[in-house]
């Protein structure tokens, strides 16, 4: 019910309409003053006392002018502050949250696409590779994993362009390995390669494979049919002779290298410098997507050499067959020395086994049991590193890895007989934890952004209802103390408690091992998210409620407010869920789902509108509440993005720099995960020692 002073208070504050909060504040102050004045005024009835108070107040127009003059400066800077909040703070928070979350999402998507590209599958969309002037379209597509390999013509053009450079031999080796054998100029091209690197056996082995493919078919290359004995088939004796000559020429050369890792090293230099975990994962993933056509060629060559031995022996060329058999160690040694990745090493073992077993069988056939036994002994020693790893990891070692290693380590630890130290394993384990927390913070940022947009949408509904009640919801400008209370209780305290719990040694420093505390860490992050959302809303709502009461705005009592909150909140959150569902439906391109959710969203809107109209006497309060909650969420987003994100990013970079097991560091010339490089080096040492002993 209006007081007798309402009209006067409205008149006096008429000039302050541009700042609804200030106007309500001054109006409430004038009303309180008039009520006090009426209490002490002369008169026998309340009406007389009220009239006396109004009379003593003076001319309202004059007072209004003086109040406007006194508040003009304050209104100006408050208007600027509101504009800054609405036009800068809220958009800034949304942009910051979306940019940070999308940044990580896009990086993860790159890894996903690179993984999809494994096995030559087509990527769904181009990755963000740099476009360099020299790149032909097919090479760029290759880098983006849109095709399995670059066209050989492009690779050769690249070599031509860099012919004078020291690395040019690398580019030609890549080209030679990819060159299809049905090319007419195959032999000439191999000779070009040989002239570039006369001491590299690569081109001789490739040429041997080329000749022998046309010359014969080894029995081990055929599929055995029931009741049919497999036989080596000779098509062209001259070509077989040429193939054997190239093979033997190769085995006499000082080294063998297909330069695949060198090429990969060159290739990854084209990529942006890796910074975050996803970059390194991407970096490692694209290293895993390289095709090695030369490895398949080596296996075929090994099978054909076995066939050649048998064909030579059967043709009465025992000496030539023995020469081939004796060469197995040089061949195995070449492949082993040239292997820089595990896949190369495994192929070297397979090829060495084929030729060594064929050699031993040949010695048996010639009655040279001693040589056969020597060959088998050498082969067993050569195979020993791999055979050892066929056995299960000892339980103590397994427990050690589980206790101190990261989740990824068992996957990436083939050389488990050389266990890394606890200190070596710590950074990767720490990194996993940081990554989980980063995902948690990103999730929180995007949820807060969703809440911000939701609260602005709800404010619009209440605004429409308030207009019917002839009032205008406003953006409340809280005092710094009130704002600090909301942010302190809502964000700083929960996040600070979490940080203290997980980071401060005196309180409860966290053992970073997701295997043991992963579920707990996820639960903690969930709890943190819930507490932040709940506390922000609770304290902000309390602040707005108190302020609205000060301003004499109609506010529901506690019980009524709870009932309205439950009803309106339920409708609001159904709408929010529908929006999220729409986003998901759009991603998965489900038209029926999209239609259902759109309908749900429209129905939610209609329901909410009806509710707001029914409660229009509180619309000024609810409109102001929702309007004022948005900047609170914005401040929370910016605060989290400005503190937790840099801290986590810094920790992530530190852990990545410190990790010497799983993270390849391109600036140190590393292409493989260091643990793989270490494994390869360790195996090679043992395998080469086995070949030299005999």
């Amino acid at each position, binding site marked *: 019910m209006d007081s007798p002073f309402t009209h006067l208070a409205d008149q006096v504050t008429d000039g302050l309409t541009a700042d609804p909060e200030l106007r309500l*504040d*001054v109006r*409430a*102050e*004038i009303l*309180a*003053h008039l*009520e*006090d*004045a009426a209490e*002490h005024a002369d008169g026998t009835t309340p009406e007389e006392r009220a009239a006396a108070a109004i009379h*003593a*107040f*003076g*001319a309202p127009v*004059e*007072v209004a002018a*003086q*109040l406007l*003059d*006194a*508040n003009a*400066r*304050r209104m100006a800077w408050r208007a600027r502050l509101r504009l800054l909040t609405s036009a800068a703070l809220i958009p800034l928070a949304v942009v910051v949250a979306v940019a940070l979350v999308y940044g990580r999402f896009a990086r993860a998507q790159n890894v996903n696409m690179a993984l999809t590209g494994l096995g030559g599958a087509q990527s769904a969309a181009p990755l963000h590779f740099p476009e360099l002037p020299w790149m032909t379209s097919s090479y760029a597509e290759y880098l983006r994993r849109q095709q399995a390999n670059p066209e050989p013509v492009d690779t050769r053009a690249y070599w031509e362009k860099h012919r004078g450079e020291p690395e040019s031999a690398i580019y030609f080796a890549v080209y030679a390995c990819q060159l299809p054998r049905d090319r007419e100029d195959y032999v000439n091209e191999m000779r070009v390669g040989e002239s570039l690197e006369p001491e590299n056996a690569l081109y001789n082995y490739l040429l041997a494979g080329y000749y022998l493919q046309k010359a014969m078919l080894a029995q081990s290359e055929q599929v055995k049919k029931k009741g049919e004995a497999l036989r080596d088939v000779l098509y062209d004796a001259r070509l077989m002779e040429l193939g054997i000559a190239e093979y033997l020429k190769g085995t006499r050369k000082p080294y063998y290298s297909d330069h695949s890792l060198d090429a990969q090293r060159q290739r990854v230099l084209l990529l942006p410098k890796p910074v975050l975990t996803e970059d390194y994962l991407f970096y490692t993933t694209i290293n895993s997507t390289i095709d090695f056509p030369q490895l398949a060629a080596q296996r075929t060559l090994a099978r054909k050499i076995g066939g050649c031995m048998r064909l030579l022996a059967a043709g009465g060329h025992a000496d030539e067959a023995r020469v081939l058999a004796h060469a197995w160690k040089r061949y195995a040694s070449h492949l082993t020395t040239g292997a820089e990745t595990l896949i190369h090493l495994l192929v070297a073992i397979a090829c060495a086994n084929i030729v060594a077993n064929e050699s031993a069988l040949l010695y048996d056939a010639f009655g040279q049991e001693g040589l056969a036994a020597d060959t088998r002994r050498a082969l067993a020693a050569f195979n020993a590193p791999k055979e050892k790893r066929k056995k299960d990891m000892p339980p103590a070692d397994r427990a050690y890895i589980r206790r101190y290693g990261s989740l990824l380590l068992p996957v990436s630890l083939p050389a488990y007989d050389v266990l890394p130290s606890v200190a070596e394993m710590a950074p990767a384990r720490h990194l996993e934890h940081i990554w989980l927390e980063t995902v948690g913070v990103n999730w929180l940022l995007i949820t807060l952004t969703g809440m911000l947009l939701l609260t602005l949408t709800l404010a619009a509904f209440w605004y429409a209802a308030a207009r019917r009640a002839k009032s205008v919801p406003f953006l409340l400008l809280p005092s710094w103390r009130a704002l600090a209370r909301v942010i302190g209780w809502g964000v700083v305290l929960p996040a600070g408690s979490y940080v203290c719990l997980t980071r401060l040694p005196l309180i409860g420093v966290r053992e970073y091992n997701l295997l043991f505390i992963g579920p707990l860490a996820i639960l903690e992050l969930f709890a943190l998210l819930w507490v932040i959302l709940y506390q922000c809303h609770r304290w902000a709502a309390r602040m707005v409620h108190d302020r609205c*009461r*000060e301003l004499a705005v109609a506010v529901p009592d506690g019980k009524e407010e709870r009932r309205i909150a439950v009803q309106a909140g339920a409708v609001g959150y159904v709408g929010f869920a529908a929006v999220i569902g729409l986003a998901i439906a759009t991603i998965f391109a489900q038209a029926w789902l999209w239609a259902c959710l759109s309908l749900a969203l429209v129905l939610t809107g209609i329901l909410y509108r009806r509710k707001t109209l029914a409660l229009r006497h509180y619309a000024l309060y609810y409109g102001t509440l929702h309007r004022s909650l948005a900047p609170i969420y914005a401040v929370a987003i910016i605060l989290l993005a400005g503190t937790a994100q840099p801290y986590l990013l810094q920790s992530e970079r530190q852990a990545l720099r410190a990790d010497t097991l799983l993270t390849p560091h391109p600036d140190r010339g590393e292409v493989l995960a260091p643990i793989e490089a270490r494994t390869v080096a360790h195996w090679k040492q043992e395998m080469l020692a086995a070949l030299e002993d005999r």
Partner: protein
Amino acid sequence: MPFTADLQFSPVETVLVKLLHERAMYGYEIIKVVNDRTDGAFQWKEGTLYPCLHRLETAGVIAGEWRAGAFGKRRKYYALTGKGAALVQARLDEWAAFSAAMDALLFAPERGHPVRA
């Protein structure tokens, strides 16, 4: 001594700063205190008080806060801020100098004109 322009026209701000230095008060209370202490010589009006209070609030000299009074009635109390507290003595000194100057101007014997018997 140069005086603030306001002081030459109205001592209201100085009075407000002094009164609020004593304790936090709301508008009607200030008017009552002024009237009481001056035995009704000063009859301040709302049009005099509130614009001045708001000016001082905008300048950061005083800060308003809504509080519930003895019978639960909510009123806006004004109190000096740190900036305002630092200003009190200066304002009182200024007023003493202004008052002395006014006394000298209004009540000192005239110079340059001999007093006639």
